[in-house]
């Protein structure tokens, strides 16, 4: 029986099993790819919360991904070099502890999302798309021209952050951490989406006047969703930097924001597991066609265009439709 639920469970289990087998057959590259898929899907799940369920087309989610990345990169590099990060009100050397790094990422990304949300949610439609893009570009150009942390070149962080003494430099261990995060995020988002709050959020995309008339303030709902969404995407940025042990302004680039939207679209808009399927497809596609030609993006372009024009609903939608026939 093909249902959305089954597709989701099957994909989660297969990713987990592939990782175990890859470890057994000693294929570290495959494990890295799987971790990448998971991290990208966490980022897109964050975006999907506002885009898929609230119909707020943010074209600037790379800002949160990148900020999460920079926050954890900066904390880690200061800890590594034992350099003072701040001297007031207390001395702080950065940190190499994952829990602290994640906490900081979540805090700063929520703060940024609150700021961006307060301004951008005043607008709607194409203006919203553009103002979110503008905020992300602001950060991007700031990162490029700010010389303290590598400017255009970015910087390396050498070692991954540590969690409860686990050896995170071992690929499979890091994969488990990412996988665990994915499960948490999936659990939280499905709880949110099906809660009264989630219903109100889903209602805002249809009729704002009606939402107001039942006594809900749509701005507040959208803002809370935007902050949650930014925090989730920020965690993904943190994990991504840890995975690559490298921070660069390309995390903040608008292509990154575009790719998050593509993951959601390929998987299926407004479905909790859509981003996971989409990211898996995207990375697999990149690997497969990338091994034949360096110009694989031509084919990616064609696939995206045909998906939008002819196969609305993405992969999950397609499978469900196929099932009905």
């Amino acid at each position: 029986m093909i249902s959305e639920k089954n597709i989701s469970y099957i994909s989660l289990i297969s990713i987990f099993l592939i990782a175990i087998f890859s470890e057994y057959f000693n294929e570290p590259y495959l494990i890295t790819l799987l971790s990448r898929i998971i991290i990208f899907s966490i980022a897109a799940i964050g975006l999907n919360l506002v885009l898929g369920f609230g119909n707020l087309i943010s074209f600037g989610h790379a800002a949160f991904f990148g900020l999460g990345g920079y926050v954890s990169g900066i904390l880690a590099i200061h800890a590594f070099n034992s350099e003072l990060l701040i001297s007031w009100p207390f001395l702080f050397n950065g940190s190499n502890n994952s829990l602290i790094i994640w906490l900081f990422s979540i805090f700063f990304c929520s703060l940024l999302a609150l700021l961006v949300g307060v301004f951008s949610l005043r607008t709607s439609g194409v203006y919203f798309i553009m103002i979110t893009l503008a905020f992300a570009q602001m950060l991007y150009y700031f990162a490029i021209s700010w010389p303290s942390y590598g400017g255009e070149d970015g910087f390396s962080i050498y070692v991954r952050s540590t969690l409860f003494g686990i050896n995170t430099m071992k690929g499979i261990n890091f994969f488990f951490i990412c996988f665990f995060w994915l499960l948490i995020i999936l659990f939280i988002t499905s709880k949110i989406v099906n809660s009264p709050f989630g219903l109100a959020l889903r209602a805002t995309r249809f009729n704002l006047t009606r939402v107001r008339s039942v006594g809900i303030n749509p701005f507040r709902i959208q803002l809370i969703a935007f902050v949650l969404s930014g925090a989730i995407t920020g965690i993904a940025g943190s994990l991504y930097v840890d995975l690559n042990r490298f921070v660069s302004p390309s995390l903040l680039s608008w292509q990154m924001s575009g790719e998050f939207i593509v993951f959601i679209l390929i998987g299926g808009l407004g479905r909790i597991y859509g981003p996971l399927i989409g990211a898996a497809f995207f990375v697999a596609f990149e690997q497969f066609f990338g091994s034949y030609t360096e110009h694989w993006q031509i084919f990616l372009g064609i696939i995206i265009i045909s998906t939008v024009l002819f196969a609305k609903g993405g992969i999950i939608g397609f499978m469900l439709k196929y099932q009905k026939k």
Partner: protein
Amino acid sequence: MTAELLIEQFLNGLQFGFMLFLMSAGLTLIFGVMGLINLAHGSLYMIGAFSAAATFAFFNSFWLSLLASFSCAAIVGIVVEKTIIRKLYNRDHLDQVLVTFALILFFSELVRWIFGAFPLYLDVPELLNGSIEVFSGIYYSKYRLFIIFVGLIIAVFLFFLIGKTNLGIQIRAGQHDREMISALGVDISKLYTLLFGIGAALAGLAGALIGTIQSVEVGMGEPILILAFVIIVIGGIGSIKGAFIASLLVGLVDTLGRFLIPWVLQTVTNPSDAMSVGSAIGSMLIYILMAIILILKPTGLYGKQLS
């Protein structure tokens, strides 16, 4: 700092603004009339620049390559409109963003495939080489003046086209009520194709003109595309007048900001800090400008109020 330097920077800002206008005019018309967000507008800019560079390599003529830039861009634009873009007019913004994002991937990779990853260069013709005295004692590049001149001519042409001609009436009517003008017997799909072609031609021309100053390379279109979007949002979507004023505003703020902010900061901190902090703030300036304008006027300077 001298007055000459300031005037030169001012003219640079003006020149940049006029080029941005060529990009944003097409973009704002396409959005205003067809309701389409066209991210691929930067690709047309790139295609214009590359066709100019290829023509220049063959015939070694600047003027021929200029001709090639806008005609090739227009042809590609019309083909893309007829095959793909046309299907998007009735879709929501998300679909438009995605498809035109995919078009960028497609065109960038295709151009890289054909021309390789190395930048190409175009030469300024003999006639426009060197500089000329604009005010007493102040010299300025002839070529950049030429760009300002071209931008000015096209601005006048567009205002005439939109304000005084039959086509302009149809375009303006199309912005207000699409169904009504097609009911009145205007072939709306032909109008859309024509408009998209004009937008593409302007973008291609801008690509060749800027490509001559900078270099012609894959990915050259996206930074300027984002600036063009900032402009049409500041100016108010659909308004040529708004696009014109916002283009000059953004061109001047960006150029003068990058130049003046480090210089102002030098008075309070040491030169190297002033340089790095100043350039960081300078590059963010137009986005800050946009955020402020949108907060004060959520539909831009000359945009229609949201109902």
